[in-house]
């Protein structure tokens, strides 16, 4: 197969990458801003897909479906928040419990169908693999709006309080910030965004699958980390630039995946590739740092001087 197929498919690859980028922006709120390893994401991504698919099938518009998906994701985030702040369950475990529970809940939402097809022929969708150029425009507009909103929100008083909670909870309490409330708010917003991305992804691919969220958290982290590694070329980057690079990370991740698929590697190995890519991007900055300041190097150069 020629390189043309890869290039012709690029708008679609970009669109899918940006959808993952939106999800990564959600993960960014918990993982980076709140310093909370939230694993509910795998569940809430599929929740967004299921809610959107069922709403669209019932004859409602995709706008309505996206709003409902956003609210459903927020509710999922709230469950993790309650488990953590009210019942004192550690962050990772709260997320895992929500994720597990959501698997059943998502099946219920999808009327016990593991896969709910929503064909672009039958329904009016926001994005679709069939119309790559149009879909790309749509997701670009959406992601820019989301970045603008996030940039504004984290600059407000509440947003600052949320950031402070993630950096230093002890200080935040001393400054009169309700730390549990801020954590909950972060989890709610994060999962709402993730579900929103799930709703987009389901429409783009023409179906909502109960397993579509599997590995979503790793993809989100991959996008954040890839974005961070490449954004390091900028010395002084502000918050908006950081967010843009998170989305770029999502796009790059999906381009890797497209190349892997184009090389005719078995689709079943995708998760393995994802894991390897994330491991590489995590390891590279560390190893680079090690190479610059290692004991071996110190012994060598110290001897010369």
């Amino acid at each position, binding site marked *: 197969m020629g390189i043309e197929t890869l290039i012709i498919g690029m708008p679609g690859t970009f669109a899918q990458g940006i959808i993952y980028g939106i999800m990564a922006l959600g993960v960014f709120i918990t993982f980076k801003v709140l310093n909370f390893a939230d694993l509910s994401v795998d569940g809430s991504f599929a929740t967004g897909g299921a809610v959107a698919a069922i709403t669209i099938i019932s004859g409602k518009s995709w706008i309505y479906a996206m709003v409902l998906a956003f609210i459903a994701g927020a509710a999922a985030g709230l469950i993790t928040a309650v488990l953590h702040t009210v019942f004192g369950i550690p962050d990772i475990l709260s997320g895992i419990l929500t994720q597990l529970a959501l698997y059943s809940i998502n099946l219920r939402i999808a009327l016990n169908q593991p896969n709910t097809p929503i064909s672009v022929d039958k329904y009016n969708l926001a994005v679709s693999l069939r119309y790559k150029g149009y879909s790309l425009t749509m997701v670009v507009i959406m992601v820019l709006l989301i970045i603008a909103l996030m940039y504004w*929100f984290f*600059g*407000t*008083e*509440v*947003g*600052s*309080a949320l*950031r*402070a909670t*993630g*950096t*230093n909870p*002890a*200080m*935040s*309490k*001393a*400054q*009169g*910030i*309700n*730390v549990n409330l801020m954590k909950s708010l972060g989890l709610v917003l994060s999962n709402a965004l993730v579900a929103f991305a799930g709703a987009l992804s389901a429409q783009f691919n023409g179906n909502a699958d109960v397993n579509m969220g599997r590995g979503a958290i790793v993809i989100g982290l991959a996008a954040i980390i890839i974005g961070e590694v490449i954004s390091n070329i900028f010395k002084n980057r502000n918050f908006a630039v950081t967010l843009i690079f998170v989305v770029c990370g999502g796009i790059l991740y999906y381009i890797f995946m497209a190349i892997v698929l184009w090389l005719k590697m078995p689709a079943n190995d995708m998760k393995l590739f994802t894991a390897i890519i994330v491991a590489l991007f995590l390891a590279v900055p560390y190893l680079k740092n090690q190479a610059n300041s290692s004991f071996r190097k110190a012994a060598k150069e110290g001897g010369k001087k």
Partner: protein
Amino acid sequence: MLNAFNLQKTFNPGTINEKVALAGATLNLAEGEFCTVIGGNGAGKSTFLNAVAGVWPVDGGSIEIDGIDVTGLPEYKRAKYLGRVFQDPMTGTAANMQIDENMALAARRGKCRGLGWGVTKKERATYHEMLKELDLGLEDRLTAKVGLLSGGQRQALTLLMATIQKPKLLLLDEHTAALDPKTASKVLDITDMLIKEHGLTAMMVTHNMRDAINYGNRLIMMNEGRVILNISGEEKKNLTIEDLLHKFEEVSGTEFTNDTEILSK
């Protein structure tokens, strides 16, 4: 300003690690009093401050700040009345955030946080002036991340943040203990300046007897979770370290055995 009555706190009750940290500590501070707190390790000094700050609920007793009973209020609600500086310079500020953002967080202590800008332009100008007074060169680094500052600079900033909105009570928990002697004395001077400038009521825990004597107009000594010595007025002014050691032995019936405090004469 502060009425702490008969405070009780036991950590890990019923276990082998049971520790009675507060056993009926009582203290009343009038408005404008600057009280230094000394005592050996485990005497309950920091525990007392934490009880007032509401880090955890007390087992018994009551705490009133400016006539308001705060015994049942959680830490973040009590923060409205309190300015706090901690022993560890890392605790008082958010390292990932800018200097102006940190100050803006403190300026909104006890107020409702809405969707207005986290730091306004007007505020920045005020912060610039306030930092200038510290004379640490921080006024030109308003947008620098606090994590880049030294321990002393961070403590000075925390102090400024604690007083940016006049607190009913300023709690200083060995806030110079982690600093080198020169920086410690600079931070203490800033402390004294801010307390005098705003006429604040303050409590300062210290391990240094000289500082405890030189600063403030009230001195208490704690031992085994109680306030065992209470000195103010003229008596405080004429106090010497020898007097203090002698008084400690008299009240507690044991010799003062804390090396740090004797060594830091």
